[in-house]
């Protein structure tokens, strides 16, 4: 039973040999610290960009816990993802300060512009959209992030230009 959107290469193997080595070293290093699962998952997501099933299995085996326990933690926290994310991760803030200043309209515009819904990734793998709850830059509300870059005081008509700029950079 294979899920859609899951990288089939990773299903079989643990990504590149380099990724595999990093993951295994990570598990070895943290294994003895109590409560290390969250940390390992965060780092593993850094290595792979998301948490494919095979990675979760490896972590479960490495820590001597069940896969269901790992999966339970992965699906509990919104930061962990079971599907790959875009090269440019867009995160529109839907925190209260941004919401009252119309960030729902920004999100709608991004969705319209990219033709995908929040939580999805474009076919070319260039963009994915997520919503987040407060990046803490409330002074600039409404705010969205593309990767690490923060764009503030947004209006829907600014969205196109910002996305174009990132498309250019990736050409």
């Amino acid at each position, binding site marked *: 039973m294979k899920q859609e959107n899951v990288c089939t290469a990773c299903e079989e193997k643990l990504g590149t040999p380099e990724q595999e080595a990093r993951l295994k070293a990570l598990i070895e290093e943290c294994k003895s610290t109590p409560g290390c699962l969250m940390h390992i998952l965060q780092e593993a997501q850094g290595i792979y960009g998301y948490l494919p099933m095979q990675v979760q299995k490896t972590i479960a085996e490495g820590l001597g816990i069940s896969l269901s326990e790992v999966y339970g933690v992965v699906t509990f926290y919104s930061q962990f993802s079971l599907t790959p994310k875009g090269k440019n991760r867009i995160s529109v803030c839907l925190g209260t300060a941004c919401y009252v200043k119309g960030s729902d309209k920004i999100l709608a515009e991004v969705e319209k512009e990219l033709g995908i819904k929040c939580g999805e990734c474009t076919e070319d793998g260039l963009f994915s959209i997520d919503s987040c709850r407060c*990046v803490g830059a409330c002074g600039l509300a409404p705010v969205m992030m593309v990767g690490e870059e923060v764009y503030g005081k947004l209006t829907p008509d600014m969205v196109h230009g910002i996305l174009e700029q990132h498309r250019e950079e990736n050409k």
Partner: protein
Amino acid sequence: MTVQELDAIRKQKKELIDVRRLVKEQAEKLAANTGYRKQVLVCGGTGCTSSHSMKVIAQLEASLKELGIDDVLIVKTGCFGLCALGPIMIVYPEGAFYSQMTPEHAKTVAEKHLIKGGQIVKELLYQGTVHEDGSIIPFAETPFYKKQMRIALRNCGVIAAEDIDEAIAAGDYEAVEKVLFHMTPDEVISEVLASGLRGRGGAGFPTGKKWQFAKASQGEIKYVCCNADEGDPGAFMDRSVLEGDPHCVLEAMTIAGYAIGAHQGYIYVRAEYPVAVERLKIAIGQARAYGLLGKNILGSGFDFDIDIRLGAGAFVCGEETALMTSIEGHRGEPRPRPPFPAVKGLFGKPTILNNVETWANINPIIVKGAKWYSSIGTEKSKGTKVFALGGKITNVGLVEVPMGTTLREIVEEIGGGIPNGKKFKAAQTGGPSGGCIPAEYIDTPIDFDNLVAIGSMMGSGGLIVLDEDTCMVDISKFYLEFTADESCGKCTPCRIGTRRLLDLLTKITEGKGKPEDLEKIEALCEHMKSSSLCALGQSAPNPVLSTMHHFRKEYEEHIYEHKCSAGVCKALLNYTIDKEKCIGCGLCSKNCPVSAISRTDYVAPGHKLASFAIDPAKCIKCGVCLGNCKFKAVVRK
């Protein structure tokens, strides 16, 4: 490090810090001793970095080099508070407060102000500091700063956030020295108790009591935790403390460790705060290198160390038992209490958990004494409170005021009122667990108990101002979407209650609400409050109950008249074109995403082209036409 060495650092940098705290004349005299003619403080908090304050610093450095200036110090600090006007930059000893800086502005300031014999560039200053007659008033006397009292934020925007020496010179680690050498654990606890400090995370539980319980618990191993999982959307005071003065948290946790007999601390911080996490890591590294964390602190024989644990985006982890479960590496689900964490907390050991702002108050309480601290505030709420002012307000930013300050003072004086001449409708405090304070209570002195009495709560300190364009039903739906999404699902009242409540509210905003829905909502809210396992479910109904109490008319208007007078709830809006005003330019029709607008055959008197009309059956109420019409012919009702 020994106490003498700590003292030496304090003395060495004291004057440098004092220049930033004194009035202009004294500061100017002192500046001569420091080796720096001028100091430029640039905000490196998340708000200002997001508007590119790092580019301002880079430009300053380049310009100074170009001009051959080597006696000006550039300092990257934490938040100054006035985030709306960032990036902010202050030049001492004059205290010139520049706002909305760009690299070009920085170049101008370097060339005209920072050079020898330079003058303040008035046109780039925060205009609130420029008097009508052209004279410059100190920023501490502007309406935004005048009524503030900075205790928790005392060092934010004053010291270099990544420099432990500056933190020490500004007073950090003075309290831990006093505690380790001159106070017994019991004396520490009674001092904190006497100060009247109450937890700043939401519920306002007396901090000293928490410590007392944990001390009384038997056990070799105990833990001290810091809740930096600031989940309330729109609140950013904890982040600002961590970014501006991380050492004050480390110090306070060490003091608590000494008081209850713990040797390990954990800071649970949101992963969404990369700057804060980075500064904490730097601070912990520096404190360890100085021997202010680790074995035998300052030669006292007391051991204490702190580790960081990153959250992964779950609002429920702000609840104390859920937070501890999460540190243990599990799904962050809450546990029933009792046993309380003070008895059985992290890894089953006695644990105390306080939030960042609470920790930030500990140093002043120990150094200046409980008597001084308890003289500030109201009868049952002592000290100050930091608020993150946001929403429809001019001075969006971070403010710290004594407990008992009225909402009017915060909104109208400090906050600078509502922009665009709109009317104040309500202030939302306490985030998804709190409620709304309507205009008629604007003169209520804000403290823990008064807020509860009017149906809201202090929460962690998010204060979102709402104006007449906000629909109260929509706002409570917004919060329910949040809590329904964030409910961990462990207990039924919260898991299903939030979902059902959201369904009912959605129905009302879509104009399908029935009169009996209001009673259903009230009954459901009461059940959730009384039977949910943790504070998330118990407080999730608050935004609904408080808006229903204060703005019942709006709910009724949605249900009986199918009207949303704030013009927010899409399903209840109708767009029409005033055919007399329409000049027939067709801009609305061209931009309509669903081709719902077409030309009629009516030509209004005085116009050449026939007017347009909207087909209500096709209209999706997106509002694009309204935004495009330059002749105010599109009407939303």
